């Protein structure tokens, strides 16, 4: 009998803990160990912050370049256009994050709808 059948309804939860939760959480716990005694203005943390910011910008760029699910149906130029509209909205409306997000989203819905209904 395999572990899957032995555990029955608990199997998905065991997978979630062992495959999903633990490999993910290890970095957060390791950060607690490594950051003990570090001052918020120390040079090493300034560098760590630069690495984190670059990583995050890279994650965003990858999401735009090769998106999953329904977003893949919107052409790359459309995804880029939505981001440009969002940034323009952010700067136009007194640097408001939510205004930028809403304007970018509106642009994306318009582009997705236009792309689906058969552009000329």
């Amino acid at each position, binding site marked *: 009998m395999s572990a899957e059948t032995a555990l029955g309804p608990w199997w*998905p*939860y065991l*997978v*979630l*803990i062992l*495959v*999903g*939760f*633990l*490999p*993910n*959480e290890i*970095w*957060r*716990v390791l*950060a*607690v160990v490594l*950051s003990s005694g*570090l001052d918020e203005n120390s040079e090493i*943390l*300034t*560098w*760590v*912050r*630069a*690495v*984190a*910011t*670059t*990583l*995050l*910008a*890279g*994650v*965003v*760029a*990858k*999401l*735009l*370049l090769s*998106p*999953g*699910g*329904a*977003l893949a*149906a*919107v052409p790359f130029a459309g995804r880029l256009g*939505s981001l440009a509209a*969002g*940034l323009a909205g*952010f700067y136009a409306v007194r640097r408001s*994050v*939510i205004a*930028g*997000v809403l304007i970018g*989203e509106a642009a*994306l*819905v318009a582009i*997705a709808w236009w792309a*689906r209904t058969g552009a000329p």
Partner: protein
Amino acid sequence: MTLQSDFLAAWRGVRDALAYPAWIVGFSLFGVGSLARDAGLPAGAAVLSTCLMWAAPAQVILFAGLLSGAALPALAVAICVSSLRFLPMTMSILPLVRRPGQRWPVQVAVAHFVAVTAWVEGMRRLPSLPVPERLPYFFGFASACMGVSAVLTLAGYQLVRVLPVALAAAMLMLTPLFFTIALMASARARQDWTAIGLGFALAPVATTFAGRDFDLLALGLVGGTMAYVVGRMGRRA
């Protein structure tokens, strides 16, 4: 610092989260909920994945992997690599909320709540708060984000496939759109702008040079170090 002032700071955190950040991360997890249902998981596991993992990209890897029948050890490795970003993020936020004599269980709890939304917004809002208010504010902010996200994960699980494609695409666009704007809103020094620029510029070529598994790690280390050097030159000049 009293219990009452802690409560007030936590409440301000909840309020600021509910103003919009909680909804943005929540709606991006809506899609994760639908994916969990496609993968044949129970609703409880979908909601629990949001509370325990608190990392939309890793949750997508898990559920999409289960759906395609990937080997579990391979999935665990892929998730581990994808969540590496939490190391520098958590390391940079912990010193901001540290109080004298803080015990490690509190720090592990703070670390658990670190994800992109809480990090970006925390780096933007925490430095301007008085030090004693930062910890309760962060807990209030992050737990409100997680609570809203748990509810919306369940909603996504239940409402799968009734959403028009344009709206589904819009929910998936929330993450890149919000992260980019929030990064720009919190950028202060030359180092931040260089890091954002390099992250975008290096992403298309990183996979070619470092391979699929380690491209983000390489991008973060190379680009981040370059941004640090540029920022340091700026500070000296």
